[in-house]
């Protein structure tokens, strides 16, 4: 097996606040192979974005990476100086963000924002050559009449177009890894499909490894090869799409899947997970999911379950479900 494009081990991030340290990400591990798509799924506040940012080395004070390692193509990123990190960003590993209306600087022309991304890694690049590359990139994400659009300002583009622009910029330097933090959440379904289509195609062409962060299981169902489910700063279950979606082993994953309204369960009561996501400041002891879990017992309340291999995937649960527990 070849080397993973991105290998994250035991990553932990915490924020210094007035009320003490707040651990947003509590030791997570995942990897993505070149050309592979990993779906990172979780509810709001589970630490998905923080994971993405930490991977990029973009955690700002008062936050900091407490421990762990992030390797891109085998090169460690954690601990690098800002200047060294800067060289990696955009070239080895790139990221796009959720809100298309704020990912691009509203007062700079599109070409400025594209060329600067190229020049950041290739200072001597001539404007002409840079422009060529930009045109090609725009065409690649399906933006019509790129020559004209290159001279426009971001607000002249629709939401979907802007997200495509961001993707084009992120992939300009052909990074090995692209982290996409919910880039289609703000888009309409029809536009979402278009964007997903472009990304799928591009990643396949360039062999870029893709980490697709989302709270919508359905999106990654069709897109990802593997899925990692996050809950309260931890990955509770990782495995292939099929394994996870059709045969979840962690009670949380199972509950999550069961609560998605869908064709098969029309009109029926949805399964619901009682209670709410725990607050980071008042995290329960032991398994963070235990207060909401039907299967919880004394062990769950006392000990944090370590990730363990179960039925071809990794599950962090003291009492993983058996194959037919799901509905």
């Amino acid at each position, binding site marked *: 097996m070849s080397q993973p494009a991105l290998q994250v081990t035991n990553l932990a991030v915490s924020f210094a606040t007035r009320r003490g340290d707040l651990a947003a990400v509590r030791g997570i591990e995942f990897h993505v192979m070149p050309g592979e798509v990993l779906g990172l799924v979780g509810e709001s506040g589970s630490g998905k974005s923080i994971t993405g940012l930490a991977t990029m080395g973009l955690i700002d004070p008062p936050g900091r990476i407490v421990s762990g390692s992030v390797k891109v193509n085998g090169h460690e990123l954690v601990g690098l100086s800002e200047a060294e990190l800067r060289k990696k960003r955009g070239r080895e590993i790139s990221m796009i963000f959720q809100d298309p209306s704020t990912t691009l600087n509203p007062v700079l022309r599109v070409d400025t924002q594209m060329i600067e991304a190229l020049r950041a890694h290739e200072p001597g690049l001539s404007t002409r050559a840079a422009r060529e590359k930009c045109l090609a990139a725009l065409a690649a994400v399906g933006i019509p009449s790129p020559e004209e659009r290159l001279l426009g300002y971001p607000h002249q583009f629709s939401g979907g177009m802007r997200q495509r622009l961001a993707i084009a910029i992120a992939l300009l330097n052909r990074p090995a890894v692209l982290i996409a933090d919910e880039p289609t959440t703000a888009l309409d379904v029809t536009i979402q*499909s278009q964007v997903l289509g472009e990304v799928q195609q591009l990643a396949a062409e360039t062999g870029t490894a893709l980490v697709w962060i989302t709270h919508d299981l*359905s999106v990654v169902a069709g897109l990802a090869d593997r899925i990692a489910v996050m809950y309260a700063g931890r990955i509770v279950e990782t495995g292939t799409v099929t394994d996870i979606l059709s045969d979840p082993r962690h009670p949380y994953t199972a509950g999550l899947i069961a609560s998605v309204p869908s064709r098969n369960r029309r009109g029926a009561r949805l399964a619901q997970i009682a209670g709410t996501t725990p607050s980071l400041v008042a995290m329960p002891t032991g398994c963070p999911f235990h207060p909401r879990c039907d299967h919880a017992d004394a062990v769950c309340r006392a000990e944090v379950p370590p990730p363990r291999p179960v039925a071809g995937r990794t599950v962090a649960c003291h009492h993983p479900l058996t194959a037919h527990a799901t509905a």
Partner: protein
Amino acid sequence: MTDTAPPILQLEGVGRVFARKPDIAARIAHKLVGSPLPPRVRAVDDVSFTVRQGEVLGLVGESGCGKSTLARMISGILSPTSGRIRFEGADMAAMSAAERRRAGLAVQMVFQDPMSSLNPRLRVVDIIGEAPVAHGLVKPADQDGYVCEMMERVGLDPSTRYLYAHQFSGGQRARIGIARALAVQPRVLICDESTAALDVSIQSQILNLFMDLRAQMGLTYIFVSHDLGVVQHISDRIAVMYLGRVVELAGAEELFADPQHPYTRALLAEVPRLEPKKRQFTGIKGEMPSPLNPPSGCHFHPRCSVAVPACATRRPALRELPGGRLAACDLIGEGVAG
């Protein structure tokens, strides 16, 4: 089951135009150099349908298609610029003040943003209890008790009634919003994206609550959402909107099983499904047009894969198709759209 129930709400050619009156300067500039006048947005355009007692009508469509505007007109926040809305057969606009108040109370709304729809300076007990007391539904002395009852009904802990809205979680705030609407004993509940801001696990709780309440109180719902999964789950009938117009209206089962309008079809094809199958995303071609400047004729024709030249000029009417369903496409049944 509700096919025979009497209609509770009837919309007849309801439309809403948002326009700013051009001032003198704009008019002079228009005359002098032909500067454009302020734009007119036809947010909702000639919408007619009937809601029967006890049914759940889903309203889906992409952003900006006029769902919220329609919902707000039905709930009385906005008034239509054209058309009529009848409540139990009576035209709302033609009612006396007292009648309108009664009808208005019967049609309540649950809002999308659980934070901004709650007055941050009021305690929950007042948020929920103010209107019923003001309308004499309960005596002021009973307000506390009544509120507790309402809170219990929506699954909130009544002991928290003296807290402020910001001290609750998102799901709890949504419940407060529902309790506020329920407190005036409505017959119709309009839910405008009422679960859009919530996590899936919380969303399922709220959706279940809606269904429980329906069963308990025989409420009628108009359920607005852009999330097809949710609408499909909860609705009896579904209306699909595109750029201010209803393009298709059918029972939920039929619609999903066999969408008729090309837009509905394309839309349903794009909805991500919780099926672990890697698929190739394609998307409807083209961008969503701006409502400021909608395409002529059938609004969907520039993106429609089966459009014929006539679609660009002729506005298709919402026609009744076999099976009691409605669709606004002239090509259906002509074999082209099959």
